[in-house]
């Protein structure tokens, strides 16, 4: 086993929650709203199905091949060559995810806080710190999550509650004005984030208490769904349909908070909170990429490759899209298909094949 660290199911749920929801809270409402309009909060409910299915599939596959992740068992299911090819597909898609996450972070920071600072510096500094965290192994990244997340999440939720002063619940109506269609269409966008839940396949083999894995995984999906629901509603309540013109509606909503002419202008605090989340996300996804690559190449260790892979990811984030507009266009047009495709559809097929190949075998036996 290349990873010697062990994590608890609670730690897994925490890092999944932080790693998946953060970028979603930043950019997803606007893009969801593009399709779903007023019903964007319903889209989240539909999209969460992706998450439940992804976690369920990962767990099923994990039951058949305990102690292994998709990079390891796909060659056993499909045979060496197609299996390795599939593994590569996964690795590339997660590497792209690292790049995209970095880019989203960089666009956010550069667009609002550091307009003059070179993109390279913003991307590079963040990726460097993440790479060092990943170098410490899975135990370090879950500990970092546990050390940073509780306080950040608490402040985040309290801040969100403070937007209540400018809520107008009337903006919610009329619900389903154009039927269920727009909200279903809109669900493709949060679906990207929910399908990312398939990274659980890399964490399940590392659990010290695997029996709780499924339950905690589903709890993570549910909490992300609730959080997305909440933030989408806040965007709608504060801005009505105006949220559509804002790239970061939730950020704008928190900036809009003002109490007693003193407690206002929370930009910097929100930046800190989002950076914390994005850092955790980068750690998680980068860890998956580094670990997966080492397993794919049958290396004996993964930690030394964290830094080189980080350079790759940082480079990727710079050239993957030419501008922020292209970035958001890609997220709202290409990703809704590519992510659920690799993270839900392929695992589903894998699972079916694995079940079919293992039919008639005793429990615990698997076809090699």
């Amino acid at each position, binding site marked *: 086993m290349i990873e010697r660290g062990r994590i608890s199911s609670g730690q897994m749920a925490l890092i999944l929650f932080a790693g998946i929801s953060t970028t979603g809270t930043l950019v997803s409402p606007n893009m969801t709203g593009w399709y779903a309009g007023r019903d964007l909060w319903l889209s989240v409910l539909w999209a969460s199905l992706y998450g439940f299915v992804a976690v369920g599939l990962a767990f099923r596959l994990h039951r058949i091949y305990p102690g292994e992740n998709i990079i390891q068992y796909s060659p056993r299911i499909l045979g060496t060559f197609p299996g390795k090819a599939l593994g590569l597909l996964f690795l590339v898609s997660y590497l792209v995810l690292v790049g995209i996450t970095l880019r989203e972070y960089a666009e956010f920071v550069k667009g609002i806080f*550091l*307009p003059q600072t*070179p993109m390279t510096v913003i991307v*590079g500094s963040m990726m460097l710190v993440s790479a060092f965290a990943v170098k*410490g192994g899975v135990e370090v990244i879950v500990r970092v999550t546990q050390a940073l997340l509780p306080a950040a999440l608490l402040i985040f939720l309290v801040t969100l509650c403070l937007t209540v002063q400018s809520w107008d619940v009337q903006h919610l109506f*009329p619900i389903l004005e154009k039927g269920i269609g727009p909200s279903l269409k809109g669900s493709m966008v949060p679906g990207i984030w929910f399908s990312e839940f398939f990274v659980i396949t890399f964490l399940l083999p590392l659990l010290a208490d695997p029996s709780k894995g499924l339950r905690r995984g589903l709890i993570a999906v549910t909490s992300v769904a609730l959080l997305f629901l909440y933030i989408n509603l806040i965007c709608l309540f504060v*801005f009505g*349909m*105006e949220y559509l013109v804002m790239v970061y509606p939730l950020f704008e909503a928190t900036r809009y908070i003002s109490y007693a002419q003193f407690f206002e202008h929370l930009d910097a605090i929100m930046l800190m909170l989002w950076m914390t989340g994005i850092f955790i996300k980068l750690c998680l996804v980068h860890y998956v990429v580094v670990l997966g690559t080492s397993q794919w190449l049958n290396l004996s260790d993964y930690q030394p490759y964290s830094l080189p892979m980080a350079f790759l990811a940082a480079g990727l984030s710079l050239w993957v899209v030419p501008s922020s507009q292209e970035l958001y266009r890609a997220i709202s047009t290409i990703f809704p298909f590519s992510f659920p495709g690799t993270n839900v559809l392929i695992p589903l097929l894998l699972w079916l094949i694995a079940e079919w190949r293992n039919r008639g075998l005793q429990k615990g036996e698997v076809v090699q």
Partner: protein
Amino acid sequence: MTRKGIRPIHCLILLPLLLVGCWDRQELNHLAIISALGIEQAQDGKITVFTQEITPRTLKGGGMGATSEGGGGGKTLLRSETGETVPDALFKLQKKVGRRLFWGHTMLVVFGERAVRQGIQPQIDFLIRHPQMRLRANVFISEDPGAILGIQAPVESTAARTIRNMVDLRRRKAMDINQLAQMMAGDAQTAIIPYIQPVDKTIPYIHGSAILKKGKWVGKLNQEITEGVLWHRNEMKNGVISLKIPEGRRDMGIRVVNSQVDMIPKIEQGEWRMTVRIHAEDDIEVNETDLSMRNPRFVRMVEEAAEKEIYTLAQKMLQKVQHDLKADILGFAETFHRRYPREWEQVKDRWDQVFPRVKVKVQVKVDVERVGMTNRPAGLPMEKVKKK
């Protein structure tokens, strides 16, 4: 094990070396902190901008720097520049200012009347798009934005702060950029912006309002009608009404503590109807009559008088807004949209024509909650108080 642990700390030492360069650093004394922005139409399609810049040096109270400074000059500085568009004008202005213009603390945006007549949609777009600009900034209309921004506030640090305090004090939702954008893009595409005028060169005075339709000027409301509109929009939280009580033959002042307006839309046989229910809770502020408020009959009398007063105000307001200006700033469009989405779909493009034909029924209910610290007319001999 030991080798692993040292890496992140190395990274901490490496990072500063890597990042020698301060791209976005802005020292405080290199910033021109703008507290208010004014936008006015100039000749031949150009735009004039006014900025109210805070000059921190003179704000310092006492201090060692006070020796040479002090004396002449205000606490804020008015600058202006003309350009093709707002950003163009600001760019030109920047060239004349030695410090970087900083918009993070802009609390006030004042549009000139002529600018509003030309349409302010591009300006709103600029204000929302700008990363430093605050959606909370209050929006006003003035005949002369330059004069408003040039006001040297006697007590507060800036005129912008004075105005914001006024807005907060009246406890009335003032129009800010967010609300304005929402209204302009809403179903009715109308907006109401309060008017502001300078009095006496030191006092800004919020009085009346302007109505916009599709981002352009359609008319002006006086203070009375404005209050009626605000009342209707549930934005009036604190107002005083003077009543004539027939029996007492003198005046009575009541304060609106809380009011709630409900709109109930109805479409019957193609006829669009709106019932407006106003429910107000009042306190008695002054009692010039000789009526004792211990008597519930007299209280009811006051309530009726107040209901009548409010009803009249509402009717006046409706006459002006619905029939004269034909601008739906009352939220009728949204209300119908929510209740009758399908019917709305058919009329949404010609709402301008439908709105004036909506039959409006106003129902007013007033409750006197408290009568103040005394329940009889004070300063009046007991025998002269009318008890029954």
